[in-house]
């Protein structure tokens, strides 16, 4: 079996003395969709924030694509190929869909500020190339008709897709999705699930997904990790997790 894309070993995090994550360890295999589930405050978002460097873990280690670290800066994580969408809307709200997605390519930008200012050197070539890639992703996520609209004016479900497009355009090898379907109706969820699945199969992107809707989780994921109060209480295939009594007690039985 190939080396996992992401390995977490004994990762702990605390805020002002309160443990948010407690010696957490698990693997995400290359090419799989891994769902993180657990009640509110279980530490799911905090975990994503550690993986791409928004928070700094107190201890433990993370291995991503063979590179091991305890702490990482967000920009470095992005360069290594970690993509991310956000639970609460974190789009650049005054920019158009096009500009938001283009921003996802900034880290691939080689032209200097002088080239940008005078439209010389790599500037034009890069601009063409970036626009082509954005158009591809925009078309892939069915956003073409919204391309030039300011994101703040778009419906919530569309904004979520823009967020996904922005994360995808840079070609991440691991995609962290923080509740991509929160607040959506059933049709929108279906649509989004389709996009996620297609991303996984067509673009071969490994995905870590936080989601509350169990039917979505069970339908989409290859692998489920269950968190409760910062501890791992379950880890396995959807079937295994569904049968795990601890998980049922902590989460499935009560919440749903």
């Amino acid at each position: 079996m190939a080396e996992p894309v992401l390995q977490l070993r004994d990762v702990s995090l605390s805020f002002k003395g309160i443990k948010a994550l407690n010696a957490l360890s698990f693997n995400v295999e290359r090419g799989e969709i891994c769902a993180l589930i657990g009640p509110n405050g279980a530490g799911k978002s905090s975990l994503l924030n550690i993986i791409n460097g928004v928070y700094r873990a107190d201890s433990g280690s993370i291995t991503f694509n063979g590179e091991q670290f305890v702490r990482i800066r967000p920009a470095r994580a992005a360069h290594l190929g970690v993509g991310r969408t956000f639970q609460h809307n974190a789009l650049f709200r005054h920019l158009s869909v096009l500009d938001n997605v283009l921003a996802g390519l900034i880290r691939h930008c080689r032209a200097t500020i002088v080239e940008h200012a005078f439209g010389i050197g790599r500037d034009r070539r890069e601009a063409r190339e970036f626009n082509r890639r954005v158009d591809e992703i925009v078309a892939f996520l069915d956003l073409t008709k919204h391309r030039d609209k300011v994101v703040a004016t778009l419906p919530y479900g569309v904004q979520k897709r823009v967020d996904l497009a922005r994360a995808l355009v840079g070609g991440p090898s691991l995609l962290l999705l923080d509740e991509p379907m929160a607040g959506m109706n059933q049709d929108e969820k279906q649509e989004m699930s389709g996009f996620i699945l297609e991303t996984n199969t067509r673009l071969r992107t490994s995905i870590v997904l936080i989601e509350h809707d169990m039917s979505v989780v069970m339908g989409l994921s290859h692998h489920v990790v269950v968190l409760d109060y910062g501890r791992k209480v379950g880890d396995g295939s959807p079937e295994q997790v569904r049968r795990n009594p601890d998980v049922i007690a902590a989460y499935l039985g009560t919440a749903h």
Partner: protein
Amino acid sequence: MSAIGTDAIEGFSATRDTARVTRDRLRVGSAVLLLAALVGIPLVANDYWLNAVLIPFLIMSLTALGLNLLMGYAGQASLGTGGFMSVGAYATYNLLLRLPELPLPVSLLLGGVISGLVGIVAGLPSLRIKGFYLVASTLATQFLLEWLFNQYGWFSNYSTSSSISAPRLAIFGHDLSSPTGRYFLTLATVVVVTVVATRLVRSQTGRTWMAIRDMDTAAAVIGVPVSAGKLKAFFVSSLVIGIAGALWAFAYLGTVDARSFNLDRSFQVMFAIIIGGMGSISGNYLGAAFMILLPILLDHVGGGLFGGAIDPGQLENLQKALFGALIVWFLIKEPRGLAALLSRAWTQLAARLGR
């Protein structure tokens, strides 16, 4: 989240609509007309209009553009504008004085670059401090620079009054010291800088800045170089402001000391961009017009209507209060600035024409 220039400034770019094409054509057309008018003005305008109205208006627009790049686009508010203007002015003065073989445009640009480098240093705290605390910390730059040029005679070539005056302004042998010459020097600079700045804000550099402005944490997570982007914004902004400072000193006043670039100047420029419209290029000209032309207009009107009837001191105070009230009124009534107002007017006009 930074509360400055990010959260609640609405409408950085107008929503596109059906009348878009007509509107854009209208815009380009009127910009060309405006430029033609600006080039033609010296044929009809007298010294007063050039020296006291148009030159300061153009330079104020340029300064506002500089600050707008930093504050309106990159979301980093600064009250160090006056300080950067003084760096540009004093640096250009020393280049003209000590390296007279350099042509004027090169000295102006180098003066701007020096100001830009100072801007990078001044921008370093922005990597750690956010929001209103950052605004307050830029005041340190403002006061430190003001002090520096007043304190050390070297910067003013040990003139008795620490003030600097323009050496002869000339480009390739053409004397520019007449009002018309200074006007064209200013106009040319403003046009070039505007074109370059417009390119820049539409490039990935501009997108970097707007990403930082709108949501800096998310920007970092998707791989936008936040720290470098902030420092670049400080550099470009201070560069433009530095060039504007040099023009203020040499094309407008002729002789200045550091007090021309005091905190009041910084406030004036910030008013110009907030009233004109943050994150808008045309807003800079509208805001500068508001700040430079309105007080002069009030003065003329006041003098014309009440001259002799009201005590001049009362009249002046009345104008000051009225100016303050107008500022507040615009801030309340037009959150997105005059640029948005104008943009809506264009849209309506275009809709009518397009029909």
